[in-house]
């Protein structure tokens, strides 16, 4: 479909029909075809929206082995600085399909998105699990697609663990950071979120809850069920509102 469209699109600044040149070798024709492909590039569209996709594992202080698809927080964070500072960007769309990841990196991204002054909309597609939850609720407005899921479960300790009560306290503290952020940035109550987090009987090998599409909206975690169209429309509306407010204020 796309290819067909590209082939038929007239190439700008080039006569549409040239007199047929004398017989050429197939190599020459191939070379010309490639040149034409290069010319038929989609013109760089000026978009006032920037999109960041958070996929796979959110990678933190350690580089994960290559079987993981990762979102690199050290690239996302300065990119968010650029979004805030670049006058051409007026809104940010965050698309999530993540299986969680590093707590610190995830919370860092969430805090950056939260404190961005430009309008932000997040869309959870597929999955926004674990540390993906605070990232999803950090935006000004959040969407979840009908089939997307969010898993809410307690944080587990991995690696070197000392069997002392302090370990538990530390873990509890880490968990409270996540809970506090989510509760402060969505309509869910702390009690409800904790209840979902420590729910037993939903997950086969773990405790926690899986929220599918509208479940996440019903508990107040995400604002609305919707897809790409709704998310972009909402973001555009917010951009317009911000513009008119700025125009009125000055």
């Amino acid at each position, binding site marked *: 479909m796309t290819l067909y469209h590209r082939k038929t699109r007239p190439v700008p600044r080039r006569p549409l029909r040239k007199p047929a040149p004398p017989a050429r070798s197939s190599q020459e024709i191939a070379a010309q075809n490639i040149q034409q492909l290069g010319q038929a590039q989609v013109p760089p569209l000026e978009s006032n929206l920037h999109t960041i996709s958070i996929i796979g594992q959110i990678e933190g202080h350690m*580089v994960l082995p290559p079987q993981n698809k990762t979102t690199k927080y050290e690239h996302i964070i300065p990119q968010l600085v650029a979004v805030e500072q670049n006058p051409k960007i007026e809104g940010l769309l965050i698309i999530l399909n993540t299986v969680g*990841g590093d707590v610190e990196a*995830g919370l860092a991204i969430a805090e950056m998105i939260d404190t961005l002054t430009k309008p932000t909309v997040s869309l959870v597609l597929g999955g926004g699990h674990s540390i993906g939850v605070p990232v999803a609720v950090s935006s000004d407005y959040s969407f979840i697609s009908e089939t997307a899921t969010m898993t809410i479960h307690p944080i587990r300790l991995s690696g070197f663990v000392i069997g002392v009560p302090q370990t538990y306290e530390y873990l509890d503290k880490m968990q409270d950071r996540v809970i506090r952020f989510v509760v402060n940035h969505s309509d869910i109550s702390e009690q409800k979120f904790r209840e979902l987090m420590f729910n037993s009987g939903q997950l086969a090998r773990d405790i926690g809850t899986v929220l599918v599409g509208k479940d996440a909206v019903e508990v107040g975690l995400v604002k609305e069920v919707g897809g790409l169209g709704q998310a972009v429309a909402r973001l555009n509306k917010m951009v317009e509102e911000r513009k008119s407010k700025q125009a009125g204020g000055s």
Partner: protein
Amino acid sequence: MILYTPLPVEAVLEGFDSYTPEYLELDYPGGGKLIVEPLSPTEGRLVRLISSHPDDYLRPELQPGTIISFGPQRGR
């Protein structure tokens, strides 16, 4: 490091000990540095961009994962 993920930690960290890539540090015009994982003597995959200019992080050709061609490295 605390991983907060529904995936089993073993699956995420599998091969963690044997994964020890060597990185190259390349300068790029504009003042920043590129951390590149070499794939061949003249090509590598961009792992990280180090720059103090935020707009560099928006440049499509500097996104992590991009294959970058460079001249043969001296002393290697």
